[in-house]
């Protein structure tokens, strides 16, 4: 069984599971309780916060725990919009964001905010010039993802951050869910004010994520109640999840050549596929520079994504059509359409995504499986 759907979710690392089971068995206190058992749990939470802060090169007080990437994105965008609405009601984002950003923007539009959805080029990149041109006196927030979840395109976050540095009142949020702990990005260096991460995308547990909020940035909380997380995020801490997330971050330190090996495997994979199969389109930057090496997006015009996914499943290879969150809908991917793909091309895309546990053999076997499956399917629907 070859699991290549790591952008949807990853297998929790065994060491993460041991940490979590240990916490579940032994440290059951509520971190908000004052007694010894509570203090023990609280220490664990603070230790985890330091681990994540270190990874992002920021102060622990700048890290908030959330229930995942979706909540972190919602909190960042809604929280800033609400806080700064008296200053202006204009937001800038791109047309290729994850639904947890895109749908929030749509919701704010309904409530009267103006939102600019910047276009992307054929590789899925937004231009820093375009970001700067879109700024108005009303703009309070720019929200742009680091690595796209469907095609892996890396946005020029540093360049955008540099442009925005000239406008200190405009906040910059980055959805780093697909890149955190894989492609280095330090918020302070890149001029980022808010940054979202999610543990289950890097072999940590589901149901836990974090939001970096630069010191002195005020946001309106999304969840109110017990006043946990300095009032920014109420609710009893998910202690085993928090500890598990920190462990997953620590484990990523061992992954020194992840990007390099993915890049190498991806290149030979693409060489192999494109020499053996026709028609096939590689979505994203084909030169490799501008796309995360652990995500491969391909279109096989004429075929249907779902059919391909199921055919590969028969071969023991698990990939996905679009992103997991939207894969139930039979509409062409918004992201691929924004990149200029036709409906037919967009409806025939699959995503192959690698994790820390992916091996070279698995990628090779995936290529073989595609080479077996695609011509058969093409014959059925008479593509060639």
């Amino acid at each position: 069984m070859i699991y290549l759907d790591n952008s949807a979710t990853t297998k929790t690392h065994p060491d993460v599971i041991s940490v979590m089971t240990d916490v579940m068995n032994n440290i059951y206190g509520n971190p908000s309780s004052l007694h010894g058992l509570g203090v023990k749990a609280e220490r664990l939470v603070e230790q985890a916060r330091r681990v994540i802060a270190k990874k992002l090169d920021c102060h622990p007080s700048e890290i908030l725990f959330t229930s995942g990437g979706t909540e972190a994105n919602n909190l960042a965008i809604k929280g800033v919009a609400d806080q700064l609405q008296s200053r202006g009601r204009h937001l800038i984002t791109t047309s290729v964001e994850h639904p947890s950003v895109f749908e929030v923007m749509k919701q704010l539009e309904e409530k009267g905010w103006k939102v600019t959805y910047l276009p992307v080029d054929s590789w899925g990149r937004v231009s820093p010039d375009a970001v700067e041109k879109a700024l108005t006196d009303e703009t309070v927030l720019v929200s742009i993802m680091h690595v796209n979840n469907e095609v892996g395109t890396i946005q020029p976050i540093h360049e955008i951050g540099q442009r925005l540095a000239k406008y200190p009142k405009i906040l910059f949020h980055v959805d780093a869910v697909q890149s955190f702990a894989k492609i280095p990005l330090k918020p302070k260096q890149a001029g980022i004010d808010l940054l979202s991460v999610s543990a289950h995308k890097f072999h940590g547990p589901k149901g836990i994520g974090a939001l970096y909020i630069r010191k002195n940035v005020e946001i309106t909380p999304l969840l109110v109640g017990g006043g946990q997380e300095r009032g920014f995020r109420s609710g009893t801490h998910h202690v085993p999840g928090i500890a598990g997330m920190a462990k997953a971050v620590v484990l990523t330190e061992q992954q020194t050549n992840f990007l390099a090996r993915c890049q190498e495997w991806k290149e030979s994979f693409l060489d192999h596929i494109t020499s053996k199969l026709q028609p096939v389109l590689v979505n994203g930057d084909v030169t490799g520079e501008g796309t995360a090496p652990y995500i491969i997006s391909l279109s096989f015009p004429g075929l249907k994504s779902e059919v391909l996914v199921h055919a590969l499943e028969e071969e023991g290879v698990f990939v996905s059509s679009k992103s997991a969150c939207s894969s139930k809908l039979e509409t062409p991917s918004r992201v691929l359409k924004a990149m200029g793909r036709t409906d037919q091309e967009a409806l025939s895309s699959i995503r192959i995504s690698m994790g820390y546990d992916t091996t070279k053999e698995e990628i090779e076997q995936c290529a073989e499986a595609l080479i077996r499956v695609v011509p058969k399917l093409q014959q059925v629907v008479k593509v060639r």
Partner: protein
Amino acid sequence: MAIYLDHAATTPLDPRVREVMLPYLTDFFGNPSSIHRFGREVRQAIDRARMQVADALQADPSRIVFTSGGTEADNLAIIGVAAWYKEQGKNHVITSQIEHHAVLDACKYLEREGFQVTYLPVDSQGMIRLADLQQAITPQTSLISIMYGNNEVGTIQPIQEIGEIARSKGVLFHTDAVQAFGMEEINVEQLPVDLMTVSAHKINGPKGVGALYFSKNVHLLPRVFGGAQEKRRRPGTENVPGIVGFGKAAEIAKAERTQHREHMWHLRKRFLDELTAQGVSFVVNGHPDLTLPHICNISFPGMETETLLINFDLEGIACSSSSACTSGTLTVSHVLKAMRLPEERTRSAVRFSFGKGNTELEMEQAAEKTAKIIRRLTTS
């Protein structure tokens, strides 16, 4: 070994719950939204858990939305309903002064957004008065949110009667049943309740997961936007092991409710009898009968809560001042304040809350240690 008497703050994970969670941490790690087998397997597990939670509340599974906990469910219920019905010109919400902060702060949020909120007072036993509720309802009222059982003093509100009043006026009724779940017999289909909050970590389930029940006639505006999870009412990749664990915990809570409840009454009585036998002078806050048996709020007149808690901790007894969430700061609890108790009672109150693992022997030991602490503090 410490004696853990803070089960209202959180409970240890039941080993049976942990067992069912483990496979979803290891082998079944897929994303439930994935269309391949890894996704389908966990999707089924979530459906099963939804049935278990629904069954424990005697609700239809389609009426259950999983959240990250009780706080989020309370927020979703109150802000979600108020925001939706605002479009129909309804801008008034009724709650009580003794709600959990997840409800109170959601109401304060609504006030900032221009809503009117009525905070009903309670009597000295922590009970709201139905006449106050009747009077508070206006044609603009969209929602009444009154908790089932209080987390600090245990008082159980007249849920049936509140719901009947709400129905007769065409107002929706939400109840925070986080503390009552697993203790009281709950049948949401029969109760005149439209929305109900529950949380897993209070019933020996995992932290980071809760649920909101809402009946078919309820509309609410989501608080979180994104993917299509939970029919868009609560998007975000599901906390699969948490949800699976919650399902099991709910199933166990339902199956063992009667005996658990009896056990809690027993421990409570034992603890109080033992305190009396030790000659400790104390008053129980709350209602003597209409109470959740596992929550026992006691004042030790003449003492100070903070000093008591430090001493309890030193003696290896984990208990608390008020709800865990607010106990980071030691101010007089808003619940005791609303009950208008004399200051010597509000200033010396300690909450003991019992749970599954507690034994009679622990009650004896805890009472003995309490007596010892009180003696020491009185003579010093």
